């Protein structure tokens, strides 16, 4: 028992797990996508916290996770990130949690639900894409050289990241005086780890995994999303038996930031209908 608790604390620290909201409520896990960290959910949390227990975390290599736990081998496949999700669920001993994943995290949630079906009872997929690169009749919206361009952009932008800033970004949540220095830090990532996450994300092909989904699933897409076009949202909905697709009147890839009310309404409506 004691050992288990220690392991749980280690995972909580590794993935910078935060738990807020109603401790008695059903658990909703909010998982960030490629780019930034759990701060992306700041406009979502208020809509959930009264009725739900809200769990957030940073994938290893992002945000304020323990960067020393990063391994290129593990995080070169989405399974590695899915194991982060499962381990966080195990550390908190979650049962039938609702997993809300943005962007690539939506697919990571699908994999995690398959790895640990008892942990995840429903999925909300925000702007998901099971494959970003066009493939025969499938239109993901990108070509392989496009993804190389993104990797170049990553190399050109450090967003305040530097070897000197790394320890500050990582380990000092208790030092608010660092706030100014931490500008851009939500998206500041070790460039090597960001490159691995980008490659894993944009070169992944999880189309076949969609068929394995057995839990109630809500798919949210935006009217105009440069990363996950409408065709992809329709593909995801079609591939997951019994899933619901809602098209949010939102532009861009982050409806939870650009159209928070509509996004929250869709999520809470889905949650209310679950039990």
């Amino acid at each position, binding site marked *: 028992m004691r050992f288990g608790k220690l392991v749980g604390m280690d995972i909580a620290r590794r993935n910078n797990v935060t738990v807020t909201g109603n401790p008695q409520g059903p658990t909703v896990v909010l998982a960030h*996508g*490629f*780019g*930034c960290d759990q*701060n*992306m959910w*700041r406009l979502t949390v208020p809509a959930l916290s009264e009725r739900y227990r809200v769990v957030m975390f940073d994938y290893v290599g992002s945000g304020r996770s323990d960067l020393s736990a990063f391994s290129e081998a593990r995080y070169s496949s989405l399974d590695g990130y899915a194991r982060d999700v499962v381990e966080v669920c195990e550390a908190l001993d979650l049962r039938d949690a609702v997993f809300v994943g943005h*962007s690539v995290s939506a697919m990571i949630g699908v994999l995690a639900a398959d790895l640990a079906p008892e942990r995840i009872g429903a999925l909300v997929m925000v702007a998901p894409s099971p494959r970003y690169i066009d493939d025969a009749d499938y239109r993901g919206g*990108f*070509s392989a050289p*496009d*993804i*190389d*361009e*993104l*990797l*170049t*952009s*990553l*190399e*050109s*932008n450090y*967003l305040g990241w530097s070897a000197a800033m790394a320890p500050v970004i990582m380990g000092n949540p208790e030092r608010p005086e660092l706030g100014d220095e931490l*500008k*851009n830090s*939500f*998206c500041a990532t070790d460039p090597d780890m960001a490159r691995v996450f980008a490659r894993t994300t*944009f070169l992944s092909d999880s189309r076949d995994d969609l068929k394995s989904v057995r839990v109630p699933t809500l798919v949210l897409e935006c009217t*105009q*999303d*440069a*990363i996950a076009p409408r065709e992809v949202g329709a593909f995801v909905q079609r591939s997951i038996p019994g899933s619901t697709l809602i098209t949010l009147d939102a*532009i*861009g*890839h*982050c409806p939870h*930031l*650009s159209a928070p009310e509509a996004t929250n309404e869709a999520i809470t409506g889905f949650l209310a209908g679950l039990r």
Partner: protein
Amino acid sequence: MCRTGRQTDPADPHPDTRTDTDPDTAAGTDTDTGTDVEADSGKASNAAFAALLEDSAEDLYESAPCGYLSMLMDGTIAKINTTLLDWLGLDREAVVGRMRFTDLLTVGGKLYHETHFAPLLRMQGRIGGIALEMKQADGARMPVLVSSVVKYGGGGEPLLIRTTVFDARDRRAYEEELLRGRKAAEEARRQAEADRARLQEALAVLQQSLLPATLPPVPGMETAAHYFTASPDRLGGDFYDVFPVDGKRFAFFLGDVCGKGPQAAAVTSLTRYTLRAAALHDSEPVAALSTLNKVLHERYSAGGDPRYCTAVFGVLEPDPATGQVTVRIASGGHPPALVLRADGTADFLPTPGGLLVGVLPDARFVAATTVLAPGDTLLLYTDGLTEARTGEDRDTLYGDEALRAFATEHAGRRPQAVIQALTGLLDEFGDGLDDDTALLALGVPASDPVPDPDPDPATKSTR
């Protein structure tokens, strides 16, 4: 501010009058003290200067040395300046109200915008100095640095995004040089690490060929060995071996090649295989060392790079009837072997007059004989042990006498125990042990003359 700095003209009856072209006045500021009135003589040149500065806000905007655009929160471009349109080769009509900011970006830039730029701008209200690439009408790409701020309404609601765009072509070219340099350095480092790993693997294989993997069981005896390499590439100049020469006798040797590292290892290899072959031909210790002497001298003396070694070579002849083992031993310039007796004494077995092996064309070696009774152990070692530096300042050599005293303490114990004790001693030397060291103990078990049941009669390690 564009003040002219002229003195007040005392002749001017209306000191409050401002020149028409004063841009401050045009801008409606009221910081003017009303004291600078143009002198007649300066009026013409000042007017020209002022005309130069006659930047309407619009002209400042349109012709600014940076791109400037405003967009709605959904990214739709509402306003864009001429500078940026010219850079991109676009018409205003095609852009305003029709294009989104992301439409101006390359695909990679678009992905970066959606995953980093836009979320950060939403969360922070501003973002600065982001490197992106814009698409020019002719298909070329233009590296830029982009900064944006969100303008909020009275109720804190976001209204629009203002963005400046700086030409970063030269800067990006330079950064790309740096990135290329860094990548080349990383690639070189990876290559070097791979080479190093490969080399170490090769060295390990070579090193294994210099020492026996395990010692063969010698009937009626127990053997133990220890090996320490001081060289970081783990190639040592010390060597030892035990091997059968015929049905009943075993040969053994232990020695030390001058030098360390790969050069020493090459001599070690030649020495080991020469002694093995020589012993099969004639196992008499003096004959084996003489053969080695000839081979080393022939091989190395002519090249102007003489290589030599010290070595002890011996033959074990167990007598199953008595349980005793007769040892004939010869030495070429090597420290004398120690014999640890069952009665708790330890003494050197003198082999006087033996010369370094390989120095002279004809070397003289001297043989000695001893008999090991149950409980006795013969200990061979290299001078790494006796020349280990001890004391606080590491300025005293461990020495023969100290070794003999140490051996006396352990006399009567089994070879394995003796080697274990010596290994502990080597550990205690720490950095005082700076030369390769080989240890070989050959003993007759005290209680039981049959082969030692210990499944692991040899200890061999490197540190």
